[in-house]
């Protein structure tokens, strides 16, 4: 039990995938313009992460390892992730066409989100069991969602603030991301990665 909580705290705060490991930066910068889009994106990514990390673990443990095909890890994980993403896209299109329109190209790009592939590969690297893998994936998703939503709310306020002309738009967003990363450094040392 403690181990699972440590995994959660570790992935959400201490080794946050976006602000500490710097994985998954493309939706972080691209979808954080407004809060609804960010929330939608977080949900979609969380769904993909949890589904694909579980499936990847099962695939690795029960197919690749017995058949001694570990060298096919990367390509088979990518297949699984791509399939999950496609499934998610179908779901989003059905449930919320507006979200589909707003997120646009970023939904299929979840397939190349290095955080998603990173979770799957890290699970193997750290030799996590099934439950740990799921918690790891879920924690990664929660950390991603937390940071994405925080950044979106800050960007919404930046939109209307009185920013000097050279800094408006992407410049101030990147500076904000840097400051957020600084803040998250305060968590380091709390839990082992």
């Amino acid at each position, binding site marked *: 039990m403690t181990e699972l909580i440590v995994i959660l705290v570790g992935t959400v705060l201490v080794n946050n995938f976006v602000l500490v490991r710097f994985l998954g930066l493309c939706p972080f910068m691209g979808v954080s313009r407004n809060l609804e889009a960010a929330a939608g994106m977080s949900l979609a990514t969380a769904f993909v992460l949890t589904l694909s990390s579980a499936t990847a673990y099962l695939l690795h443990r029960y197919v690749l390892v017995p058949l001694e095909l570990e060298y096919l890890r990367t390509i088979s994980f990518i297949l699984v992730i791509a399939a999950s993403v496609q499934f998610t896209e179908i779901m989003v299109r059905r449930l919320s066409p507006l979200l589909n329109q707003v997120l646009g190209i970023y939904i299929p790009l979840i397939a190349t989100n290095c955080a998603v592939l990173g979770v799957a590969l890290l699970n193997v690297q750290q030799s996590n069991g099934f439950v740990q893998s799921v918690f790891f994936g879920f924690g990664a998703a929660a950390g991603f969602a937390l940071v994405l939503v925080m950044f979106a709310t800050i960007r919404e*306020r930046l*939109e*209307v*603030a*009185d920013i000097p002309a050279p800094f408006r738009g992407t410049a101030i967003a990147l500076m904000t991301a840097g400051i957020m990363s600084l803040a998250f450094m305060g968590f380091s040392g709390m839990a082992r990665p």
Partner: protein
Amino acid sequence: MSAPTYDLGKLHGGLRLDANKQIATSEPLQSIPIPAQLVLPITQHAGDAAQPIVGIGERVLKGQLIAEPDSSMGAPVHASSSGKIVAIEPWPVSRRYGDNAPCIVIECDGKDKAIAPAEALPAFDSMPPEVLETLILQGGIVGLGGAVFPTAQKLMQASTCKLDYLILNGVECEPYISCDDMLMRERAREVLVGGQILLHALELDICYIAIESDKPAAIHRIGEVLQELNDERLVLKQVPSIYPSGGEDQLVQLVTNLEVPSGGLPTDVGCLVQNVGTAAAIYDWIVHHEPLISRITTVSGDGIAQPMNVMARLGTTVADIVNFVGGYTEIAEQMIIGGPMTGKSVSTDRVPVVKATNCILVLSKTPAISDEMPCIRCGECADVCPIQLLPQQLFWYACADDEAKLRSYGLTDCIECGCCDLVCPSHIPLTYDFRMAKARIRELADEKARAVRARMRFEARNERLDKQQNERDEQLAQQKEAAKTAGPAAIAEILKRKKKQLDEDE
């Protein structure tokens, strides 16, 4: 003396301001004599304009009806003294942007002859509530706290809700204004009996009289009369002197600890608030049959030689009143009708005293206000907002013209009290910005409503055209059907006739 109770709710924010009331309350109340001319705007209430029912040259008596409302949201206007109508024309009035408004001008004959009442009025507690409400409407009674909402309509709306408390508002939290203070000192009995009339009209059992703690004389006098009346339904409550505790929603929260919902009314939480002046006016009308034709007004500020409270007939111009109290001082620079926080600036003293005029404030030049500086996000404004809004965020979204965000941050709940404006270290004119933003929101809401209506009409028109087309198609199809069968038969008929003709010819 009836002991005031102290169990109060909590009010967020607000400011303790320098009251500056003693400069006017140290003088006794005086009555302004009949002026040479009375200028009565025909609309002295919130709602639709009333229409004059008298003509130029007509002689009127004091208390005679001279303007009647032609819709359900209005109040009548009565002549404040006897005389002759000399004009019905636009005149400067103390509206927000200094417009002229149509006014009935009466040249007073000095006799002040009152109109005789139609029949003697029965005692108020023998009249059923609906009759009382209609009677109150006829007296021209409106809310004398400043909003001048027609009182009868307010009571009628209130009787449709479940009510628990009546609250008489004697708080008068704005600096300089002391007209309600003097009213309670000099006419406490009229105020309290007016409260009893309201209790009867609303069929309620509890009436709280709320007075600020910086009015000890008024509290004392009200307490004395409460003891004389010995009516346990009337309870005195003392509230702390914080601005704007006299606002309707704020007072309800202070006295009963119930929060009026956003966009709602005090009747939603079972309370009805009336100004003490309104209560006294109701008494005058219901018991003595004198309609609302005069009110107490504070004349104050360092631009007035002898500040005091005066009882003035409605329609007396500010110039006449200032003359009576000794004129202006040398340092007089600006005139405000109302208080320093929520009053309206006027540029001429020809404006008349109307039902809403609680104070005439003449001030010397205020120290130069610095130019507006950028917002430093200090958050002082949020600390003082009595509605617990976030003026800082509202300011940013007002600058960005973001209607959706302004609504979600509660701009429509802003009471424009001016607290945030006063504390802002960057001197940002927040109250003005919010007023502009509210107007913009209203404009956008209007446009949206128009768009919805246009779409409805467009879709209805398309339906109609489709229906017409379908009917035409059906008719055509029917005709074709008929033609199919009718055709050969008709041709056969023609051939037969032709043959018969040919046979006959042969």
